[in-house]
């Protein structure tokens, strides 16, 4: 009997060292029955995309608190496209000003979760978007 699981990559691109949020989200998704690949701090866009490809993930969750999201995220998305990672759900968490959210959605980041986001919000968003039988 097939035993499918939602696989999620959680990474922190860029240079800030605040990984508490990323770890909390990783733990929350684990407790929601997902397989979470946690890659840690200071990832380049190339590292993120190459890990996502090898791990064949359904979701890429990026945590950015440095304010560099408008530079880093387009690079990640572009590389992902280049490597043929279609059907991957992109989420971002951290400090993202409201003004940037429409532009991020436009780019292909479907979920933007700020400091007030609840565990329930994030997990049900993923489960809703990634339908696995």
């Amino acid at each position, binding site marked *: *009997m*097939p035993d499918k699981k939602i696989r999620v990559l959680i990474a922190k691109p860029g240079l800030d060292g605040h990984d508490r949020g990323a770890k909390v989200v990783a733990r929350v998704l684990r407790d929601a029955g*997902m*397989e979470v690949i946690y890659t840690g701090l200071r990832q380049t866009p190339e590292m993120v995309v190459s890990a996502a490809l090898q791990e064949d993930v359904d979701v890429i969750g990026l945590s950015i608190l440095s304010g560099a999201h408008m530079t880093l995220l387009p690079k990640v998305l572009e590389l992902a496209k280049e490597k043929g990672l279609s059907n991957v759900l992109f989420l971002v968490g951290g400090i993202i000003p409201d003004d940037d959210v429409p532009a991020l959605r436009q780019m292909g980041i479907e979920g933007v979760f700020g400091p007030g986001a609840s565990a329930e919000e994030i997990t049900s968003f993923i489960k809703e978007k990634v339908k696995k039988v």
Partner: protein
Amino acid sequence: MDLVDRLLAGDRRAAAQLVTLMEDGGPSARDAVAAVYPHTGRAHIVGVTGSPGTGKSTLVYELAKEFRARGKTVGIIAVDPTSPFSGGALLGDRIRMQKLSTDEGIFIRSMASRGQLGGLARATGDAIKVLDAFDCDLIMVETVGAGQSEVEIARAAHTVIVVDAPGLGDDIQAIKAGLFEIADIFVVNKADRDGAEKTYLTLQMMLDMDQASGARQWRTPLLKTIALQGEGSVLVADAVEQHLKHLVESGQLQTRRNRLAEEELRRILGQELLDRVLRGVHEDEWEALTKGVADRQMDPYTAADTLLDSFLQGLAAREKGGGGTS
């Protein structure tokens, strides 16, 4: 082009998707194994095991760097435990290996154990086949942080590295049966910590006893490393290559291959039989039997016999009815 063709053409994404297929299981996974299998058997499979926190991932990272420098392509399968409560997992072995992530000569895959005991996942053997067919010269399999009896890796690898670190137990631990018996190479990692010398000597004594008993042709090397600083990993890489040479020259490689094939066949047969028997059991019958066992109205062996008997009767009846076809 189907996934296996793309894998054989060197497509990394296809390799990743095939591993997922193997993990998810089911009929298409079996077809994929059948298609991949003729292209396997070339890679040197190296298991890396040891207690949690001994530094397995860091050592694997250092070894992978070293083997890349020696011109080899490397596959890494890192297994971490699945939560028995949520079914989820947090796979963190990649953290130590991220610098290798963008090297095209390395393929790293994290696997959750998905309820399997013994230190590996059910699909680890199939994932090894995928990376073997993907043309990895050397495949390192890092087990779940192992206790004393997580020795499944000995049934999947040609060479087993057991990693120990100071401060984890006295000399009796070292002569107990289990994990320490399956080592082809011993590593005392964190050799700069207090107590490293004592751990080293304890293991040395254990290995001397092994040698004196004359049971082994291969003298298990005992090596010190400080993996975090990259110290000693060259020697471990040398030992891995020497062990393979020993296996080839002594003819033991074939013996090991035969043993691995036998173990795998046995495991699959057991699983298939179980699946088929259970498929034929009606839910109500299953519930009644388990309740009977729980309430002490029937012992578990008799219950199992009942299920097997009705499975066999079902087979016989089908044969009669179907005139022996299929």
